[in-house]
Structure formats: C-alpha cells, structure tokens
C-alpha cells in the first residue's frame, strides 16, 4: 500500500491529511459548547476594560505574565482560587500566557490598587526592588482606543451573543451612550491617580492607555 501511495501524490496527500486531521476533530469538537459556558455571575468586560485589555495585548504583557492559576496549594496561596473554565467564557482571545517571568495576574484586582499600578508602571523597581519588568511610561502618553474597544464589544454581542444590555449585565448601548459610560467609569481611576497629564487629558475627554489598562487589571478577580 505504501509503495502505491508513494507513486500517487494525490492519494498520498489525502492520506496524510486524514491522519493528521482527525486528532483535532476528536480533541476539539466534543464539548465545544460546554467549555464555552460562563460560570454563574460572570460578566463580560465593559468597553473601558476591553480597551485596557487591548493595551495589555498591544504591549504583549502575556509574554511574561500568565492568567491561569493551577490547582496547587502553592499557587492558590500565592494567587487565589484556581481557575475555572467558565471564568474565561468572555475572553477572546484567551490570555493564559506560557511563561511566568512575572507573577500570575488572573486575580490581580483582588490585591493591587490603582495607585500601586500607577507607580509600578512608571517605575517597577520603586515598588518591587530588583524587578526586571520594564517601565511602561508610554501608556501615560498614548490615548486609549475606545472606538475599537466599542467595535469589539459590539461585534461579540452581535456575532457571539455575548449578553451585553441584559439585566444585571454591563450596558453597551449606542456609541454615544458608551462614550459617556466610559468617562464615568474612568473617573474614579483618574481621581485616584497622581499624574497631572492624565487628569488634564481626562478633563479634555481623553482616556490615556494607563487608565484603561488599570481598569482592566482592577477587573481581574
């Protein structure tokens, strides 16, 4: 049979494809819907949090930080309750990471504050002596892309039925409503920060990247 296949490239290619494809079918397809079900009480990200999540992705925070707590005592002691599948139901893409050069961030919102993050992003070693994390000063200058974040939320609502605008769920509304909601949500964060630039920008109606990413990090619980 193999000799025959080696003389018939078409059937050879079909053979290879079948042999490599079925593992994916068996592993990935069953339970697809089951695994995508959110745990009770889980809410999708607000537009501001999504904008922060986009900053997190833009600067590849996931290259050094995981968001997956494994079910070991050493991990639950350090980071909190281990991860459940349904907690990731609104994560597109998932951000588990594959390397912990820095600590896990899955529940960082439980034990870090806006103030902590602000100082840490400006100069990590001022808070954690010996830290090898770079400072992310540019997040204080760059303006967060709220428009794209809104487009993202709108897309997942339309295409994947993510439950925005439903009882007890974050409101998405129209673009105008969303802009107002973003400013309102950003307000306590800006107030808790020291940076004058960020405050002035907020007064002009601009949200800096640092505000968005802090909103996102604070939401990780």
């Amino acid at each position, binding site marked *: 049979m*193999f000799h025959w296949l*080696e*003389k018939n*490239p078409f059937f*050879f*290619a079909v053979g*290879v*494809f079948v*042999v*490599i494809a079925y593992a*994916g079918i068996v*592993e*990935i397809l069953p*339970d697809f819907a089951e*695994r*995508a079900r959110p745990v009770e009480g889980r809410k999708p990200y607000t537009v501001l949090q999504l904008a922060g999540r986009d900053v997190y*992705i*833009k*600067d*590849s925070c996931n*290259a*050094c930080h995981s968001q*997956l707590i*494994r079910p*070991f005592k*050493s991990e639950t002691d*350090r980071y909190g309750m281990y*991860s*459940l*599948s349904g*907690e*990731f139901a*609104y*994560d*597109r*893409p*998932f*951000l588990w990471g594959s*390397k*912990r*050069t*820095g*600590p896990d961030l899955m529940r960082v919102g439980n034990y870090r504050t806006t103030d902590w993050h602000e100082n840490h992003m400006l100069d990590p070693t001022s808070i*954690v002596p*010996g830290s*090898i*994390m*770079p400072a*992310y000063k*540019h997040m204080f200058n*760059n303006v967060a*892309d709220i428009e*794209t*974040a809104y*487009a*993202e939320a*709108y*897309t997942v609502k*339309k*295409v994947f039925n993510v439950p925005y605008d439903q009882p007890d769920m974050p409101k998405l509304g129209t673009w105008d409503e969303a802009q107002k909601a973003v400013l309102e949500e950003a307000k306590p964060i800006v107030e808790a920060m020291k940076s004058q630039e960020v405050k002035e920008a907020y007064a002009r109606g601009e949200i800096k990247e640092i505000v968005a990413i802090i909103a996102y990090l604070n939401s990780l619980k």
Partner: protein
Amino acid sequence: MQSSNVINYDYSVAKLFSYAAILFGIIGMGIGVFIAYQMAFPELNYLAGEYGTFSRLRPLHTSGVIFGFMLSGIFATWYYVGQRVLKVSVAESPFLMFIGKLHFWLYMVVMLVAVVSLFAGVSTSKEYAELEWPLDIGVVVVWVLWGVHMFGLIGIRREKTLYISVWYYIATFLGVAMLYLFNNMEVPTYFVAGMGKWYHSVSMYAGTNDALVQWWYGHNAVAFIFTVAIIAQIYYFLPKESGQPVYSYKLSLLSFWGLMFVYLWAGGHHLIYSTVPDWMQTMGSIFSIVLILPSWGSAINMLLTMKGEWGQLKENPLIKFMVLASTFYMFSTIEGPIQSIKSVNALAHFTDWIPGHVHDGTLGWVGFMTMAAMYHMAPRMFKRELYSKKLMESQFWIQTTGIVLYFSSMWIAGITQGMMWRATDQFGNLSYSFIDTVTVLIPYYVIRATGGLLYLIGFFIFTYNFYKTMTASKAIENEPQHASPMAA
C-alpha cells in the same frame, strides 16, 4: 545518476530564499540575543521608547526566526531539493518559475509588513500567530503559492516514486495550512461595527476553547515547521553529502506515518493542569511519550546511515553539523516528553526550562540543519567550492558551546524557579515572595544571553563564509557528486 547530468536545474528561487534565510536569521537571532540581555539588564528596555521593550520585541524574535529564518530555509531547500528528487527542472515550466518568484516576493512583502505591524504592537496575542487578519490572508496566499509550486512540480515529474523528503514537504504544506487556518479564525470588528481600527479582529473562540485551538496550533506549528520540514532536509542532504544510502526504508516509513499519526495529539501537553478537560491533558501527556518512537526512529535512521563511515566526521564539517543536528533532535524529543509527564510539568510549566527546551531543538537541530543544507547547496548553486573549512570548524565549536551554555543555564534556572515557587516553611507558608524567584535567576540569564551571543557570532561566521563562497571562492567545473568541495 545519468539524468542529473542532463537536466539543468534552476536555482534562482533557491538562491533568493537562501539570502532571505540569512537576512532573517541575523535579524531574528539578533533580537533574540538582545531580549535575552534585557532579562539580565533591564535598562536595555529603554533604548527605543515603547518599541524597544522586551514585550514588544519578543513576538518579533519568535516570528523572525520561525517564519523568517526557518521558513526561508525550508523554502530554499524545497526549490533546490524538489527539482532534484523529482528529476525535473523548474526551468522546464515558465509557469512554475513565475509562481516560484511570485512566492518569494510576496513572502518578502508579507514579512516586511509583519515586522512593522509587530513593532507597532498590532497583535492578536496568540503565540506564533500574532499577525492580524489582513496579514493572515497574505500568509495564506503565500502558502497556497508554495503548494501550487510543489504540486505543480510533482505533476510534471520524471521520477515516479516520491522520495522520503517529498513526503515530509507535502506533510509540512498540509499540516501548516490546516493549523494556521483554524487557529486564525477571527472576526474583523470593523466589518461588523463599522468603526474602530479596520485591521482589528476578535477571535472566533473564547477562553478554554481558544486555548485549546491555540496550542493544537502552537505545538504543531512546531511539529510541522521545526520537525517535519527539517526531517525532509536531512533525508536528502545527509545521504547526499556522505554518499551513503538511507539506512532503512522501513524505518523511514514507520517514522513518517507514526509522526503524522501521533504528533497532533500531543498539543494538550501545553495545557496540563489548566481548565481543559482532564482526558485531553492525559492524552497530550501519553501521546507525547509515544512520540519518542517516531522521533527517535528518524534520528536513528539518520545516525545509522553513517554506519561504517564515521571517519567522515573528522574530514567533513558538514557531516558534523548534520550528525550533531540529529543528536540534538534526539535530545529535545526525549526532553519534551519528560516535561509532558504531569508531575514534571507541574514543576516545569511557566518556567525557563521551557524556552531552554525549545532552544536546544531550534538552535541545535533546526539551526544546524538549515546551515548545513545551505553549505551543501552553495557549491552547487554558485559553482564554486566552499570558501573555508577552518571557519566552518570554528563556527561549529563556537555555536555548540553557545547551545550548551543556553540549555544548561535554562535547566538550572527553570528548576530553581519551579522549586522556589512551591517551597514552604515548616508551618506550610510559602517561603519566597515572587521577586525572590526572579532575582535569583539573573546570573543564569547572563549565561543564557552569552550562549545566544556565541550562537549569533557563529551565524555571522556562516554568513561571511557563504558570502565569500558566492563571490571569491575557486570555481569548480563539474558538480560534486557527494562531499562538498571546500578550501582549507
């Protein structure tokens, strides 16, 4: 051998891809060394504002070496080997010639835009699949062009039986096509919402499903680029360079079909103790162990090809490169399964042992094989002997030293880190804060970066030797049958 004298093989596309491999090798490895030093000396993060941080550069390093260096090497060897094992010249078909050149230039354009977009932070965050949807489409077109060339050439072949290398090239083409398509399924947000950045997209899969698809891809992109396509090369170049027949046809059959059958299952070992169903984690673990068989099958087949001819190791540095490549292949395909055992994975996952493992495969196996293939092709493509055997010897030892420094320091770093994360005192409290487990690694990061630097220096020696071979070496009249001619 009569026919190979008659057919006039055309190497124009193989040459272009060889230059691309060298270019992206320097860029990708250069960034790699730089970010390795950043981990030891964080001040290096501030040389280029937001574009110079470790986190921005890391995807550039991985994409640069995988899709720049390795893939160019794979394409270069295809445009060289394909013709010769199918006994047909690309020059015989103007259409395939055109496709080959289009393939190259489109590939360069996509790579160039990819580099710019990754610097700018345009990313989907998925490892080795960071490119946004417009570039994904570009990648697919480039890939299809390669397929057209491959199956076109197979269609007009004179040698009816497909040689082992061609099996592996076909598998590379099909495997990567399937994986890339499914992992990059994303919805462009602009087309749904009509606002925001036009190139932004959101993944079709959420959370655990997304992770599953990503590591099914991530692991097997490794399989089909770092492994399958490199085996394609060694099955051609080692027998050709040494003048020895492949040791066993049956072993190559077993290894090929075994590898195809088993590899795709092993992706689950990236997700052990995560939230994917337990049976998948176990399958990933078990199949990773089974994977030793076909992996070692290929490697042993190659080593035994040298049976009775080990003297060639002394005389021919190319053989040395390829034998060490097979050895590193065996090494990393035993290390990987060990890390897939659940209890070992609990310790090793998320630590530096993982990049250590990746690099003894990529530097030792992929890098050495790619460079050996290019050394073998150079005298035949440029009709000149290799410029300097001495330089090859020094390159070999400098790079081997680099690899040893790299993986040994990362083993120690990874295991140290893993042990410290879980260490508790007599009352059961964690012994170390996280930062303790970072600062303790700095010396190993220095050693690792220096190992990488040695490898990069070796790559510059290779580049110089290759360039001199092209331009200043002694011309040869007849194409060498086996061992590549080289000046002392």
